[in-house]
């Protein structure tokens, strides 16, 4: 197969990728979109095997890598629980970034061994894809570790961290310049560049709180895309250029949309270290108050006597995998004539749309899901807001307390409902590390315990009323 046919294959793949993203605009065609992207990827990979530079004796290695990777990816992708999807995406993104960095390293070593002086564009893109790919690799692994709770979700900071990171950026750029401008493209300097970029990925993500991990994963997803696109320059490969460019752009758009939902700038998310310090001040009027604790039976009585209930799911529901119990409880309430709505905050959970995915898994109809702007005007007329493992997205301090790290973030105004029931494991602050004064309000009661057990308890107690 000549290079022309290979490039036609890449063109076909690129068309598939673009159409697949278009099909993902609506839930009805989204799955077909994913299949189309798979098809495009298959075409791109198959035509690549006809490249004349692929040596027959290396086919066995390619076979080993592809088979092991396919089995590993397929089995882990099928086995992973829905609630662990965010860290799975982080991990896969990190592997992609690692692959880009390895391709760049290979190309550098290849040119260096053969004594070839690559063209300027290729040198620049090799260095850039090595840096960005490495940052994406180590940064994604830290994001994975935070979400998997191998590392604390709280921001990990030390004195002078921002100065350290800045120096590290300068050092990395200096190494890059040394390679590009001063002809000192030696292997040790390139390895030092990779190491500096890896450390930079770790030290940039460490100080970011767990609540902001979706933004970070989305941004690193964009990084990997960019890096893959740059690797397309290195290898003069259209599939990489187009696929990488598409993902680089899409990841950035998604990242900015997520920041908008939190009413924060990207810079604030990355460098704000939100949650490093628990806001001590709080609302003076509530000083000395203790939260009121309810049993599941009390909560069931309250719910069964109400006319309207708004359910606010959060990460606690995801961790406890309580979505099926929630659906069952809501079904019983509806059978009793209670109006049930679900209020989905844009950044509830660990990813945009995280709650939608879980509720869809439990077969909750879309027309019961309400977005922030739709549900807030209805809150004052609602009898009971049932907050299941959500915290920062219902913190009233975001509306008025300028000293609060989450000040300005649009929240669900559950405190305006007649009664708020908050299900939580304990009084620990949310993932952003901020205390929530809602728990001390007069109209708020707490049901402590695992969300799944509490919801199931309420559902069975409802049978008695």
């Amino acid at each position: 197969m000549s290079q022309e046919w290979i490039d036609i294959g890449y063109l076909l793949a690129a068309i598939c990728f673009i159409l697949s993203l278009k099909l993902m605009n609506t839930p009805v065609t989204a799955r077909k979109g994913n299949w189309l992207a798979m098809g495009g990827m298959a075409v791109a990979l198959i035509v690549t095997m006809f490249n004349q530079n692929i040596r027959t004796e290396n086919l066995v290695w390619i076979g080993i890598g592809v088979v092991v990777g396919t089995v590993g990816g397929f089995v882990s992708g099928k086995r992973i629980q829905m609630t662990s999807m965010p860290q799975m995406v982080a991990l896969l993104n990190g592997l992609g970034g690692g692959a880009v960095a390895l391709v760049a390293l290979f190309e550098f070593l290849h040119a260096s061994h053969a004594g070839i002086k690559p063209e300027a564009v290729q040198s620049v893109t090799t260095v850039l894809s090595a840096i960005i790919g490495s940052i994406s690799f180590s940064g994604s692994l830290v994001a994975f570790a935070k979400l998997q709770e191998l590392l604390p979700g709280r921001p990990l900071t030390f004195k002078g961290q921002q100065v350290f990171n800045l120096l590290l950026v300068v050092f990395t750029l200096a190494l890059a310049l040394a390679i590009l401008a001063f002809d000192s493209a030696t292997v040790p300097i390139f390895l030092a560049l990779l190491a500096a970029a890896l450390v930079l990925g770790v030290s940039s993500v460490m100080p970011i709180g767990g609540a902001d991990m979706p933004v970070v994963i989305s941004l690193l997803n964009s990084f990997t895309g960019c890096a893959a696109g740059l690797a397309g320059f290195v290898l003069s490969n259209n599939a990489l250029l187009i696929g990488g460019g598409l993902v680089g752009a899409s990841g950035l758009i998604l990242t900015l949309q997520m920041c908008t939902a939190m009413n924060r700038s990207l810079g604030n998310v990355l460098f704000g270290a939100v949650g490093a310090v628990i806001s001590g001040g709080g609302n003076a009027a509530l000083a000395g108050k203790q939260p009121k604790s309810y049993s599941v039976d009390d909560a069931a009585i309250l719910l069964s006597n109400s006319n309207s209930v708004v359910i606010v799911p959060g990460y606690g529901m995801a961790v406890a995998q309580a979505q099926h119990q929630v659906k069952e409880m809501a079904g019983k309430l509806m059978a009793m004539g209670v109006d049930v709505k679900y209020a989905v905050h844009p950044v509830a959970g660990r990813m945009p749309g995280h709650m939608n995915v879980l509720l869809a898994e439990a077969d909750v109809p879309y027309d019961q899901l309400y977005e922030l702007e739709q549900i807030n005007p209805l809150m004052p007329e609602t009898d009971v807001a049932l907050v299941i493992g959500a915290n920062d997205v219902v913190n009233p301090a975001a509306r008025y307390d300028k000293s609060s790290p989450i000040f300005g973030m649009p929240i669900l105004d559950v405190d305006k409902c007649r009664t708020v029931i908050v299900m939580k494991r304990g009084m620990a602050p949310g993932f952003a590390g901020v205390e929530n004064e809602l728990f001390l309000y007069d109209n708020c009661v707490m049901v402590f315990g695992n969300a799944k057990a509490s919801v199931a308890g309420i559902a069975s107690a409802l049978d008695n009323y």
Partner: protein
Amino acid sequence: MIQLIPVITVFILAIFVGLEVISKVPQTLHTPLMSATNAIHGVILVGGLLILGSADGALMIGIGLAAVLFGTLNVVGGFVVTDRMLEMFKGKKRGGAK
């Protein structure tokens, strides 16, 4: 010798297409979308195949093999988890919530 201008043209146009196509996706699909684009940047596997295919010597084969392994995990795992997420939207209509 690479032809610089055509390559830059392709890359820049791909970025613009990405910006246009993505900005229309509803929030419900953001997680699957992130996952799908994550799988698509697994196209770096093409680069992995090319370098491993041309590799010579244990070190270079090792680097290429790691790149192919990482890339394959990215592609296969990415598409599998995306499909699992989207499976749940199948056959349901999105009503009132917009």
